């Protein structure tokens, strides 16, 4: 059915700058990386035009980095959730309305300071003159904390806690307190109330928080580099090394393409599974 199309010039005009930015800075780079990933490493490093699947076939050479990321990212997310949930619950349900806003702002403030400087503080705290010195003083000698997977996880929880607290707080805040009272009146134990009322109602917040943290962790590079002493190796670190050390751009591109593909698949699946309520996705991103 042929229908005369009316062009909405205002919309086209106002949308074109953002569309142009997407094209130039997102689509073009993705195309370039895709093209590179089918190429070959030039003799002296860099890229040489070719069409080969060799780079993708070589992916198992970075299996360790993928394995580390795919295990540490969910672990970090879950730890963040475990640390954040009680705090969000406290803020939303238990804290007095007067102190609530202040306490909430206090959660965000560290997030607004320089990430590098916060992480640097942990280098000092976990390093020889920090907690280990303190433990040594009370009689527990020779504790090593810095440059361990523990330090990396701690850095992750510290850095991303606010991102988890906030959405959970928002969803718990919307929760009608009378539901909790009703549940108690009906003789439900606090645990049963929590499991049957609070938890399901806070699920959207939990889902959003987990997704935000998970996305950031999949591409994490700085925290393992600073707190892991170069020994804890994520895909992000493998990527940086492939571009800046081995100068194997085609292989680096193949790793980047795979990382983005893995993220697109997991996150889309995750969204489908958890957030199938209409219009929820928009809110979830905020």
């Amino acid at each position: 059915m042929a229908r005369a199309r009316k062009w909405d010039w205002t919309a086209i005009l106002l949308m074109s700058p953002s569309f142009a930015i997407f094209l130039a800075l997102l689509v073009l780079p993705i195309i370039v990386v895709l093209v590179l990933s089918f190429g070959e490493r030039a003799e002296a490093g860099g890229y040489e035009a070719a069409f080969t699947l060799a780079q993708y076939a070589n992916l198992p050479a970075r299996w360790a980095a993928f394995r580390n990321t795919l295990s540490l990212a969910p672990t970090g997310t879950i730890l963040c959730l475990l640390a954040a949930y009680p705090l969000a619950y406290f803020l939303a349900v238990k804290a007095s309305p007067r102190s609530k806003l202040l306490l909430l702002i206090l959660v965000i403030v560290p997030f607004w300071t320089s990430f590098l400087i916060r992480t640097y503080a942990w280098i000092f705290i976990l390093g020889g003159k920090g907690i280990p010195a303190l433990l040594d003083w009370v009689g527990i000698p020779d504790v090593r904390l810095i440059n361990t997977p523990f330090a990396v996880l701690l850095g992750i929880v510290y850095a991303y806690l606010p991102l988890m607290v906030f959405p959970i707080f928002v969803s718990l805040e919307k929760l009608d307190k009378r539901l909790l009272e009703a549940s108690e009146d009906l003789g439900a134990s606090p645990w049963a109330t929590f499991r049957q009322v609070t938890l399901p109602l806070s699920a959207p917040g939990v889902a959003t928080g987990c997704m935000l943290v998970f996305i950031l962790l999949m591409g994490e590079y700085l925290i393992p580099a600073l707190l892991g002493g170069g020994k804890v190796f994520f895909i992000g670190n493998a990527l940086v090394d492939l571009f800046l050390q081995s100068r194997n751009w085609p292989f680096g591109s193949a790793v980047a393409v795979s990382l983005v593909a893995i993220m697109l698949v997991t996150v889309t699946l995750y969204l489908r599974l958890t957030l199938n309520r209409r219009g929820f996705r928009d809110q979830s991103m905020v």
Partner: protein
Amino acid sequence: MRLYAFCIYIFLYTPLAIIALFSFSAGRSASDFHGFSLQWYETAANNRLVKEALMNSLLVAFTSSALATLFGTAAAIMLPRVKGVARILFDGLTYVAIMVPGIVIGISTLIALVTAFNVINPQILAFWPGDPATAPQLGLGFGSLICAHSLFAMALIIVIVRARLMGMDRSLIEASMDLYADPWGTFRQITFPQILPGILAGFLLSFTFSLDDYVIASFVAGSRVTLPIYVFASIRRGVTPEINAIGTAVLVVSLIMLIGSQFLLRRGQKPAT
């Protein structure tokens, strides 16, 4: 529960307190405290490199978040009028822009821009009327950094403003239309005040994102030194309390900005309630 919350706050604030404490140390090393002094604030304030890095960072953060806010808001407002394939494409791009890790953005933007420079620069040279030595040549620097930062910031703002628009009361717009207000008048008097807090929040978020970014900047900033790049280099070198002084100053400034923005947001919300 209360105790747990208290512990979390201790966890959140101990590192910041330590940074602040050592910024007042009189010693040369950032790991031993040697008496109270303000000398590192003076050192930092007089350090040309710090000042320059700060100015560079502010310039990039302001420009990129202003561009992102302008284009992102325009797109978010027009988005409901776009249907079909174009809409799916645009939503998909926004989604991908938010999700792609910074490290991938940094590397791929670097390669794409440099590839583009290699095509464009010889053209400029070929068509340059004057002395070839004076012909402008594209390279990495503020421009590339601002572009790379605007991408993520713009996607963020599109999402935030759109969420705000969706939460908006449609009946107000309909009422305005019924009263024969033209679309621009409706936008100016009804829509804009309602989404303003979202726009401001988006601007502020992109501003801090840009101000704090090391990963993308380390790839596309060329020879430019931003504050995070300076801080990273200092951490590598072994640190004097100068870094602590910078960190504490940044903390205080962000606190002021945060309180200021809360104030603005609340004022912005008033007409809506």
